């Protein structure tokens, strides 16, 4: 009995100690809560993302988010007017095109300085472009494929001579690869991946902690004042963490990439706003025409006709993407709904059955195909996309689909090497021009990356002609012709075009989402 009472006594003492700890913890938590509520600052906006910064060097950067950061800490000779696809002067205050588009004369803005105090001159701009070619990084082709030489005309005038006229070169000049940087801050012939010097843009990098945060501060040397003094980008591992962060008020803006179901849920939150914009990224199915039975046009046409885009858009993406009927995204000049015109809105099962019958298939002699996808590179919805496609093709009663998947690195290897019969792929444009949505896919010498799925010498001629044609109306007609051939031959079948979504606190204003897709931080402010 004595022992029992003593143990109970000890338990009581410990209990009191625990209660005391809880009270102290409560007081500390209360204090911490006060700290939490003090995190909203007028001149600071926190943006959360699941993206990554790879190489902060314009000579090596070749991914969506790093380009976004670079385009906020630097600027090209041209830039897109927010909300449009119109290219307006950036660091070049004026320009002149000579010799039928072969020579570009750029007059730079005067009095602009890099972060290290070096003045922006034609010499620095020439050095920056030549550096990209010298380093031969991933995006070097933006320079080496087009530019024959770069010359300094005078202190503020640059002359770029191309191998041949390039109709879309103005758009190429707007990509971060061409951003002038300071020769004092970057090594001449090697990549500087963590270099935060940047170019001349609305912001400069105050702090960069890889995988954690980037702090951007308004650049006093830029010719326009950003609306918010400080932008902080915070990195999250996945969409769930990003969603929780915006819901808990930890960040002001949740940008790329939330799950479709998160977007639908967050639309219902009273303290948040969901902003939607057109995106220029596209998803499509590739049929390798070198592999039977996809060498048979009737088979490809039948599958194109039976594709149920609406089911993919509604069931898998809950309306957060739009059906696409061409490789050129809707809203871009020259776009036509080529597949809709040829096969209807779809799924057109009658037409599909008729074509399959012509190709020699029936309910008893089914077309057997393998459909490949990669499970994470294009988001967690990919398996569902494949399942809906399988369902829509099998509804013809004449097709049997086996779904197969491979992780990204294997997927690319298989696609490029062996050429998989049917694959699901996606495309983020390098520059905003129809050429970038057609040439890399359909030109015989350019679609090696897709396993050379298609070759049409007649189409190659049209695509090459469109690249050098400087009259936009004539170019548009050429691209319309290409899209008609694409729908007829159906080596690649467009599925949908992405939309852009941003979830932000109600007091955040100035967000512009357009097909340029990179967020302009300098327009955003707290209202």
């Amino acid at each position, binding site marked *: 009995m004595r022992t029992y009472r003593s143990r109970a006594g000890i338990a009581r003492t410990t209990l009191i100690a625990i209660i005391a700890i809880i009270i102290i913890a409560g007081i500390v938590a209360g204090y911490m809560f006060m700290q939490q509520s003090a995190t909203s600052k007028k001149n600071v906006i926190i943006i959360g993302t699941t993206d990554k910064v790879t190489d902060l060097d314009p000579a090596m950067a070749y991914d969506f988010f790093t380009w976004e950061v670079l385009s906020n800490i630097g600027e090209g000779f041209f830039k897109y007017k927010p909300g449009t696809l119109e290219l307006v002067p950036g660091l070049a205050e004026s320009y002149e095109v000579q010799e039928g588009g072969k020579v570009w004369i750029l007059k730079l803005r005067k009095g602009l300085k890099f972060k290290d105090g070096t003045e922006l001159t034609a010499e620095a701009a020439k050095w920056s472009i030549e550096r990209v070619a010298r380093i031969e990084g991933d995006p070097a082709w933006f320079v080496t494929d087009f530019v024959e030489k770069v010359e300094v005309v005078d202190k503020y005038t640059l002359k770029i001579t191309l191998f041949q006229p390039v109709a879309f070169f103005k758009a190429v000049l707007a990509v971060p690869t061409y951003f002038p940087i300071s020769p004092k801050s970057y090594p001449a012939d090697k990549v500087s991946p963590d270099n935060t010097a940047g170019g001349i843009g609305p912001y400069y990098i105050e702090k960069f902690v890889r995988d954690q945060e980037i702090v951007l501060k308004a650049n006093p040397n830029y010719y326009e004042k950003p609306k918010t003094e400080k932008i902080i980008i915070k990195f999250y591992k996945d969409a769930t963490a990003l969603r*929780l962060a915006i819901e808990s008020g930890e960040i002001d803006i949740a940008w790329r990439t939330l799950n479709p179901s998160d977007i639908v849920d967050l639309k219902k939150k009273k303290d948040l706003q969901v902003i939607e914009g057109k995106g220029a990224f596209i998803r499509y199915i590739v049929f390798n025409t070198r592999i039977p039975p996809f060498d048979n046009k009737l088979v490809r046409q039948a599958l194109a006709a039976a594709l149920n885009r609406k089911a993919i858009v509604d069931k898998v993406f809950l309306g957060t993407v739009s059906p696409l009927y061409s490789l050129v995204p809707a809203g871009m000049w020259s776009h036509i709904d080529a597949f809709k015109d040829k096969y209807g809105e779809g799924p057109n099962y009658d037409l599909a059955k008729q074509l399959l019958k012509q190709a020699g298939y029936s309910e008893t002699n089914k077309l057997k195909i393998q459909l490949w996808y990669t499970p994470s590179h294009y988001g967690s919805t990919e398996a569902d996309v494949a399942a809906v496609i399988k369902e829509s093709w099998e509804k013809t009663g004449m097709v049997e689909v086996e779904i197969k998947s491979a992780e990204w*690195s294997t997927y690319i290897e298989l696609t490029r090497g062996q050429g998989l019969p049917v694959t699901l792929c996606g495309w983020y444009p390098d520059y905003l021009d129809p050429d970038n949505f057609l040439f890399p896919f359909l030109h015989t010498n350019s679609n090696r990356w897709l396993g050379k799925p298609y070759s049409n010498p007649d189409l190659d001629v049209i695509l090459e002609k469109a690249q050098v044609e400087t009259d936009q109306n004539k170019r548009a007609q050429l691209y319309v012709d290409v899209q008609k051939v694409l729908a007829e031959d159906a080596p690649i079948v467009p599925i949908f075009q992405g939309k852009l979504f941003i979830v932000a606190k109600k007091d955040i204003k100035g967000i512009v989402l357009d097909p340029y897709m990179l967020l302009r931080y300098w327009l955003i402010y707290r209202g």
Partner: protein
Amino acid sequence: MTSLKAYVLTRLLLSIPMIFILLTIVFVILRLLPGDPVLAIVGMKASEEQIEKLRKQLGLDKPLWMQYIDYVLSILRLDFGRSMIWGRRPVITEIMEHFPATLELSISAFIVSVLIGVATGLFSSLKPSSKLDISLRIFSIVAYSLFIPMFGMILQLIFGVYLRILPVAGRKSPLVDIDTVTGLYVLDSILTLNFEGLITSIRYLILPSITLGIVLSGVYTRLVRSSMLDVLSTDFIRALKARGIPKNQLLFKHALKNAFIPVLTMMGLQFSILLAGAVLTETTFSWPGMGTFLMERIEYRDYTTVQGTIVFFALLVSLVSLAVDIVYALIDPRIRY
């Protein structure tokens, strides 16, 4: 040479072949995995020339045996090599950038798990088969079987989204700066007398530490309970009781100290489990540590970084288990090597 010194030396020497074998296994497994690392780095759009150029730069054009010898030689020089992606930074720099985050999370989760485990185990052993004992034993089973991402998300929802009292992800508020000395934010904030930094780093540590700590505490609860029950029924405890030693002193000074030896063994064993748990916890809480770093690099087939990180982990685990063995000897004078 004392027996302890000889033991330590033997253990250190034995670690060398262990790490060598591990390194070889990792080297082979990574290369057996399907997927070309060069393609994973450059992506779909790259040209053949770019791919071949990078393959040569990374030394992946050499025969496998040559790559292996190169790698072993560089490890012998304590050179972990350079990452294959994103500017090819030295692997050791990448590890040193991410390791403090994992260490900080591991230490705090370890403290939480031991505190909860020892306290619940102790309470459980005081009244065997009572309601409290049964409840705590159920707690220990439930805690051990919790799925970290799910449990973490529940805590995030409650404390982050609904109550809004604790942050859900990251290591510190982006609005607070902490000068880095050791990379352990709590310690750095104390060293630099940064009170705001201290508060923010503790706030951000709470949820991940509790998540991982509770999951790991289940083992300690059961172990402390059974160990305490064993010790409390031994002759020397009965003898101490007979001599009228106060109960507090009896329990904490004599019983718990003796019951602690198996717990200490478990602490050593738990270290590798702690690191594994930290991987899941880090992903759930976007904690920028070694776990998320390693997972990402495996995805990119960044061979050198994955190999370097695993060798680093192996070294760490063997050193910790060695340290635990030494501590045994200090705690229990009966143990001799």
